[in-house]
């Protein structure tokens, strides 16, 4: 069911950036401790798409994303980037990692340089850029990530939590990636910090046409930004579709221990009470519009 859904909902006009084919990852294969991280996962992601990746701790989502830039090797199936098999012999994985940037959870813990600017230059320098070139790339990335120029010569360890995280994101952006994978980029921040980071990420996608994969626990966060949502449960790809389509399966989502955004529940209850609202609304903005319309106030 799923494979069918996934392939047909990709917009025809988009170029395919990433394709996973029957991707499987088994830990300790062939031993008594064998366990599946995920099994037989296939999907296609187009250029410039904003994908939300949702699943529980242990659903396999963190393991899955590490295959997209070759940090982990699958035990079955493969990943194509720009039409090329990334696990084929001789494929330049290091170059791939500059194209598919990955921001891990709590990325501020990977900072190590003396100044913010030098830390952000680490990626481009590894990719073989000259000092000046790397510096320019770092400055562009810091601006994109919203780190003010006054901080560039500071030690990254003196910054606040939210700023550190922006520096870490800039550290990946400086390699000019075409795809950006972020694992819970807002975790642990306060509400204003969360919103800032998520807005920055969404703006990046639009401004630079970067393909974004946002891993999150929060349906509410993802609903607001994603073009399509990938739902993983127990190592299986359960849904990969537009937010409206995914959230219409409230019962199935609850069965696997997830839930739809809170607004979705409200809309369903209103509809059940006979108010002609659009049950697909899942953000505050959409809900306001459809409720006002249904009540004839607009």
């Amino acid at each position, binding site marked *: 069911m799923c494979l069918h859904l996934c392939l047909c909902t990709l917009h025809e006009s988009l170029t395919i950036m990433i394709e996973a084919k029957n991707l499987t990852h088994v830990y300790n294969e062939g031993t008594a401790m064998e366990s599946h991280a995920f099994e037989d996962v296939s999907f296609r992601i187009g250029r410039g798409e904003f994908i939300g990746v949702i699943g*529980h*701790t242990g659903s396999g989502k963190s393991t899955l994303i590490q295959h997209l830039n070759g940090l982990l090797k699958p035990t079955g199936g493969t990943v194509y980037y720009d039409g090329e098999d990334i696990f084929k012999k001789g494929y330049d994985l290091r170059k791939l990692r500059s194209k598919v940037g990955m921001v891990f959870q709590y990325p501020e813990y990977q900072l190590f340089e003396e100044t913010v600017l030098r830390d952000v230059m680490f990626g481009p320098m590894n990719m073989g850029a000259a000092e000046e070139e790397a510096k320019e790339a770092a400055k562009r990335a810091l601006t994109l990530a919203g780190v003010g120029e006054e901080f560039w*010569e*500071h*030690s990254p360890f*003196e910054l*606040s*939590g*939210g700023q550190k995280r922006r520096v870490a994101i800039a550290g990946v952006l400086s390699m000019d990636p075409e795809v950006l994978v972020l694992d819970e980029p807002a*975790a*642990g*921040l*306060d*509400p*204003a*910090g969360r*919103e800032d980071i998520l807005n920055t990420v969404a703006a990046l996608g639009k401004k630079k046409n970067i393909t974004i994969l946002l891993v999150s*626990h*929060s349906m*509410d966060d993802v609903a607001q930004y994603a073009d399509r949502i990938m739902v993983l449960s127990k190592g299986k790809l359960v849904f990969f579709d537009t937010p409206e389509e995914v959230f219409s399966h409230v019962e199935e989502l609850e069965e696997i*221990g997830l839930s739809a*955004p*809170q*607004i979705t*529940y*409200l809309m369903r*209850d*209103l509809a059940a*009470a006979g*108010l002609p609202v659009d049950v697909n609304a899942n953000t*505050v903005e959409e*809900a*306001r519009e459809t*409720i*006002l319309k249904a*009540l004839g*106030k607009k």
Partner: protein
Amino acid sequence: MNIIEAIKLNFDYVNREESDGTETVVHALSDLDLTIEKGSFVCILGHNGSGKSTFARLINGLNLPTEGTILVSGMDTKEEEKLLAIRETAGMVFQNPDNQIIANVVEEDVAFGPENMGVPQAELETRVTKALENVSMTAYRYRSPNRLSGGQKQRVAIAGVMAMKPECIVLDEPTAMLDPTGREDVLKTVHELNRQDGITIVLITHYMEEAVDADRVIVMDHGRVAMDGTPVEIFGRVEELKKLSLSVPVMTELAFELKKAGLSIPEGVLREEELVEAILKNR
């Protein structure tokens, strides 16, 4: 009766700039006056750097006030010989689940506090059993903490405090690093401890949804109390909260937007059922 009483509480720390050696004094708390009633469930909200974690550490005597006084059950944290009694009375749970579990077996970690207090062995056994029951972690008694999920680890940490038989538990962003399931479990646990065992709960968080069921919500800003009231009162003041870099629960925000658009919606809608009812009345 008040279990915690802060009188003109001040706490400063010195921030040294590595690059040029200049020192700036940061006022984490300035003239904070705050009392917390015994047996209540109080939620403290505030953006990062508002002084809420500093306040928690002062309650436990982990830091001492620069000026002013903080009393726990009438005991002043500045009197060194009372410190152990204060820590027994107001236990503390921290944000990072990995960095507060000391022992290599769950039951030994739960026993750590009372062991330090010199509780006799026979009583240790009953305290550990009871504390693990309190947080529904009995099945994990002989496990290694390393194999537990974040939410389970936080519940072990809570059990570790419960085994000290506290009157009050201060939790400093205990859910910040957890997934939704873990968050729900921890929240359910602290509510039960409050309801069934009468433990005073001071929950510091920046998830607005966690404050909905509290008896009282305190919003801190710049080391002072900026807002103080019931959840209904506080979340009715949407614009003020936003100015303090905080958000409101989604339902409250939608209610606020609808009201602005001219619907008649009562003050302080926090839950989905309430909003459904309010909207339908506008038909």
